């Protein structure tokens, strides 16, 4: 089955509403049984769908998702919002500033942009609508800031990339810090300019005692990223173990310190975490199945040779790869795109002498932009459903915020020191 046919069948299946994970599985199975071994190759699908879901470092995924769900159930998002409101609410368009800064805080706890949108959006989008912000703006700023949060550790796409490329997950996490903070500031600037144009209101005036009281209330929540990331960055625990500690810390803080976690909430958080994990992991396993087929028919080598034949200039190769990932991100979820495409382009990345950690950040940010661009845009869709807004109307406003993400992508791609400075300083 040719690459073109694979792409076409995949597109048709996704367009008629077959879930992406299953579309990938169907294409892989069709490709396998129309190959030289025919139906005899089908049992292999059973083996790969199992082994694709058993990669050890991926265990960090359910645990980070669970920790995020528990923290959300224990009012941590509410406390972070109160702190952000005390810190930046006085600026024009205050609630949008609160959304962006709370997203950045929340990102340090949860690993998933969809979880961030659901947690923060359910509180902040209705609040923005009440204060006279348009629902399109409210959905757009929530959606884009959650995507930016994907490059701030811990990050599920980075974990998957680390597994697929064999790079250090810790170094990937560290590489995301500077671009994440820079992008957040830039996004706040854009939100401020839009707020001035549309005359969005400010929140309460800045008061030091309010900052202090909200800081005390959110103190334990802020301690969580220190525990999780501190343990991982210092090498005391691995990323998976750090995720396990995040679960324990969130249960202790939610249950004992805040006293807002009872059995029914814990049960709900675990079920939510279990379902979300399964959704991501089924994508991972089905992508592994199609990826296996593509590797078997030597697609990675062909792509590498094809592009190296066109150019050997590193920056041009990065431009081509960026364009490639942007297009892929339109149609595929980030987990699927990483598993399918990273093994295909890794020979090329290595041949061009690009640092795999630097490339990991480019991929993560690139696919983050894909989460904002229909047709397949999981984060945007979640924000629109919370805001009850039309996806195309939101997309018009979202263009301003997507331009921030694209600016960050170009910065990360062509000024490697931005993501790599901390990595070089502490890990090499």
């Amino acid at each position, binding site marked *: 089955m040719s690459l073109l046919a694979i792409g076409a069948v995949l597109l048709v299946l996704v367009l008629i509403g077959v879930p992406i994970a*299953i579309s990938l599985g169907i294409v892989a199975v069709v490709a396998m049984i129309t190959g030289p071994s025919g139906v005899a190759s089908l049992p292999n699908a*059973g083996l790969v769908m199992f082994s694709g879901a058993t990669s050890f470092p991926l265990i960090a995924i359910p645990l980070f998702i669970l920790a995020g769900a528990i923290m959300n159930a224990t009012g941590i998002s509410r406390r972070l919002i109160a702190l952000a409101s005390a810190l930046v609410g006085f600026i024009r368009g205050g609630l949008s500033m609160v959304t962006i800064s709370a997203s950045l805080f929340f990102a340090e706890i949860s690993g998933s942009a969809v979880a961030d949108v659901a947690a923060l959006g359910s509180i902040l989008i209705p609040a923005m609508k009440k204060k006279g912000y348009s629902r399109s703006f409210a959905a757009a700023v929530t959606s884009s800031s959650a995507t930016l949060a994907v490059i701030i550790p811990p990050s599920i796409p980075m974990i998957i990339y680390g597994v697929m490329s064999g790079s250090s997950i810790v170094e990937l996490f560290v590489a995301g810090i500077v671009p994440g903070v820079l992008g957040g500031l830039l996004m706040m600037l854009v939100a401020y300019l839009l707020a001035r144009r549309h005359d969005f209101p400010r929140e309460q005036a800045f008061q030091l005692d309010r900052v202090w009281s909200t800081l005390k209330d959110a103190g334990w929540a802020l301690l969580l990223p220190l525990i999780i990331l501190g343990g991982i960055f210092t090498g005391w625990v691995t990323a998976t173990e750090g995720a396990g500690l995040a679960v324990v810390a969130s249960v202790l803080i939610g249950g004992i310190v805040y006293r807002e976690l009872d059995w029914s909430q814990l049960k709900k958080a675990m079920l939510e975490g279990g379902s979300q994990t399964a959704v991501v992991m089924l994508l991972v396993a089905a992508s592994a199945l199609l990826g296996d087929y593509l590797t078997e028919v030597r697609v990675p080598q062909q792509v590498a040779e094809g592009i190296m034949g066109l150019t050997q200039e590193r920056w041009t190769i990065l431009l081509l790869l960026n364009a490639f990932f942007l297009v892929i991100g339109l149609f595929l979820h980030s987990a699927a795109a990483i598993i399918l495409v990273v093994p295909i382009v890794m020979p090329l990345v290595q041949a061009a002498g690009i640092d795999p950690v630097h490339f990991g950040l480019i991929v993560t940010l690139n696919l983050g932009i894909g989460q904002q661009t229909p047709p397949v845009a999981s984060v945007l869709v979640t924000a629109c459903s919370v805001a009850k807004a039309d996806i195309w*109307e939101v997309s018009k406003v979202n263009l301003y915020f997507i331009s921030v993400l694209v600016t960050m992508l170009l910065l990360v791609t062509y000024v490697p020191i931005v993501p790599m400075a901390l990595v070089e300083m502490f890990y090499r």
Partner: protein
Amino acid sequence: MTVTRAREIFRKSLEGIVLSLMASLAIVVVVAVIFRKAGASLVWYDEVASILLAWLTYYGAALAALHRAHIGMPTLVQRLSGRMRVTVVLVAEACVLIFFVALTWAGLRVLSVLGGTTLVSLPWVPMAVAQSVIPIGAVLFIVAQLMSLPDALLDTTEVKDDSIKSTQEVAER
């Protein structure tokens, strides 16, 4: 027994399994950290935790299918009209079901050739037990998909109305 009652029992059973798997995974990882830090690493930790993840994936996937929570692109289907929409939804359903029937068969074939193979770290546990999640998970997915089909057909109409309403509100603004 009514369909609603059967669906409720099915949902609660799946939820029970997913809860136990999630709790086991978290406990295994935390216990393993404690043992490693105490200088007595658990030999079975990596293998068992990985298998728990695979089980969580497939039992959880069936639960997510029951709630229609798998990521897809419903916008185009929602924009279609009555009969055309129902036809497209049913074709998509058929594709999903055929895939999982094929996966059930593939999973059973794998089980039949595994023979006496066991886990590496726990030689008393047959590999077939770990791998059984593929055929079992695939059958559960089929059941979940069929049980949620009537709601899915209704839902597409409701979402469509909601989306039209939102668009109108945006236009009014």
